[in-house]
């Protein structure tokens, strides 16, 4: 399958500028692709045909008049449905926000509009970004393009699937415990969680504020760099956004790994990692070594406790953040005789099981008598995790591991077993706890034909080196497989 919707962002930009096609034509190809793929994968919750067409027409008009807004000018992209878009329904995949049209654009969204990007629509996610499979959506699951009986990963599964099948040229997600990287790995695309604070969270529906970070999902490392550059940088509306200069994200993409010090995380190559994922990861490490990288093994002992700490910290923050959904200012209301009864009924009706579970878990972990034993202790584990990373980065430039302990798992396999689902994030959570950047790059397929993702981690603001190594991994892997789509019509779309 090759069509306009399969182009890289760079190639599409060239085509738009040399007159090979217009943004309106590019958008039409993407929408035609979605018309075929959506029935099979359900990546989108909303496709904004009218708004996207207007944006594409404007992009074409500006280019014709000599106004060029840069790499994303006229490029059709998708947004996870927890990013507020003014006047365009934003649900976070929850019944709680059915029909909600934000009165403002989040900062990342506003920057994308200013960069001339064409927002195709809003993608499916696990409700309020809580999950690892995109099954926890009030609007039905997204299916993995490589095998529709399996999950695409989550919570940004809709964005990952859209990019994988070409119903967007690039997309954005949010990553709290792996929600960009894990679906990218399971769907065979590139996913990046930037350094905490590099992208403003203003207008991102909050899950766990000390962990949440917006980042790109793309078909190549180069595309991911362009997508990240468009939204990175300080924002007056987010007090936790980073005030310094944005790292030179795409400067080193061609530099290779000769002499780069790469640490392999011992704990993330151990038991619990499926054989094919481990051997695929190991093979890539050997190839990086052959390409001149200096490879050593690095132990991060706190990793063993990271998952437990995360499932106290994230629910604790979630229970506080989701207190705002009380049936008063926005969202679902179920009437009651008293305000308290109205709130209790509204929240019971509006939240799905996983969100309810995490709110209860967080409420418990923060409640009097248990705070020190659970939440307080988890915060100390977070300190130890950071110290492990800091010590490691004295000796290596990047750390590597599998992104996910398994490839895509069957739909329904883990929905009744929260702990089994939580384990999907075991490799990605450490960098959320530390705030450091990490990315997933697809390297190969397992024997079932499902993608394996390779994780590259770097110290805070180490995006330049992370993308440099990620690009080298991409070149070595030469992963050019694409999911087989259901219809021959796709070829012409």
């Amino acid at each position, binding site marked *: 399958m090759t069509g306009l919707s399969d182009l890289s962002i760079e190639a599409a930009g060239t085509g738009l500028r040399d007159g090979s096609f217009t943004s309106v034509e590019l958008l039409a190809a993407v929408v035609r692709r979605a018309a075929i793929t959506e029935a099979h994968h359900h990546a989108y919750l909303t496709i904004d045909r009218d708004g996207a067409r207007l944006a594409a027409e404007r992009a074409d008009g500006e280019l014709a008049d000599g106004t060029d807004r840069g790499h994303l000018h006229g490029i059709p992209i998708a947004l996870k449905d927890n990013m507020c878009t003014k006047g365009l329904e934003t649900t976070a995949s929850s019944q709680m926000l059915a029909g*909600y*049209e*934000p*009165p*403002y654009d989040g900062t990342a969204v506003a920057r994308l509009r200013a960069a001339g990007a064409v927002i195709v629509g809003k993608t499916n996610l696990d409700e309020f970004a809580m999950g690892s499979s995109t099954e926890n959506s009030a609007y039905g699951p997204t299916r993995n393009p490589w095998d529709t009986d399996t999950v695409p990963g989550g919570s940004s599964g809709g964005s990952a699937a859209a990019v994988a099948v070409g119903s967007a040229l690039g997309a954005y997600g949010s990553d709290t415990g792996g929600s960009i990287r894990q679906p990218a790995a399971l769907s065979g695309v590139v996913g990046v969680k930037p350094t*905490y604070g590099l992208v403003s969270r203003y207008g991102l529906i909050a899950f766990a504020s*000390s962990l949440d970070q917006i980042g790109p999902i793309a078909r190549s490392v180069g595309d991911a760099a362009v997508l990240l550059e468009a939204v990175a940088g300080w924002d007056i509306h987010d*007090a*936790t956004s980073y005030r310094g200069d944005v790292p030179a994200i795409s400067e080193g993409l061609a530099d290779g790994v000769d002499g780069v010090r790469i640490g392999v995380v011992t704990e993330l190559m151990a038991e619990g990692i499926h054989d094919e994922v481990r051997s695929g990861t190991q093979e890539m490490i050997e190839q990086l070594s052959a390409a001149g990288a200096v490879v050593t093994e690095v132990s991060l002992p*706190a990793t063993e*406790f990271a998952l*437990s*700490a995360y*499932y*106290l910290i994230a629910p604790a923050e979630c*229970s506080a953040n989701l*207190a705002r959904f*009380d*049936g*008063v*200012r*926005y*969202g*679902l*209301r179920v009437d*009651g005789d*008293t*305000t*308290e009864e*109205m*709130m*209790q*009924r509204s*929240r*019971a009706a509006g939240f799905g099981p996983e969100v*309810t*579970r995490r*709110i*209860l*878990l967080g*409420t*418990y*972990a923060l*409640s009097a008598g248990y705070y020190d*034993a*659970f939440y*307080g*202790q*988890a915060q*100390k*584990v*977070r*300190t*130890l995790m950071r110290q492990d990373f800091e010590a490691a980065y004295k000796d290596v430039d990047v750390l590597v591991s599998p992104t996910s302990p398994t490839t895509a798992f069957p739909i329904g396999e883990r929905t009744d077993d929260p*702990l089994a689902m*939580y384990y999907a994030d075991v490799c990605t959570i450490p960098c959320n*706890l*530390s*705030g*450091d950047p990490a990315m997933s790059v697809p390297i190969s397929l397992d024997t079932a034909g499902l993608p394996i993702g390779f994780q590259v981690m770097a110290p805070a603001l180490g995006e330049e080196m992370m993308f440099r190594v990620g690009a080298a991994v991409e070149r070595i892997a030469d992963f050019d497989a694409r999911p087989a789509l259901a219809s021959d019509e796709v070829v012409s779309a």
Partner: protein
Amino acid sequence: MPVEIDIAKVAKLARIALTDEEQETYGRQLADILEHAARVQALATDGVKPTSHPLTMVNAFRPDEVTGSLPRDEVLAMAPDAVDGYFRVPKILDEQ
């Protein structure tokens, strides 16, 4: 180590109405998850300071400039119930 949970109390604190059946299910699941999470208690953390946030920032100042706020009508348009420019909720205080 089994974890004792008063699920009815937790649900009340969280302002979520649960049926008896839901209380049973969530209570059991929370106990399982907390038993796993309680592993953090096994770690020696004497002298370790807690981390609440990945950034070591202290205060984030911005210029004290007057800017616009969201238009009231647009905000209230998304409210479940509004009257005379206010959010409306059920009665909170009993009549004396």
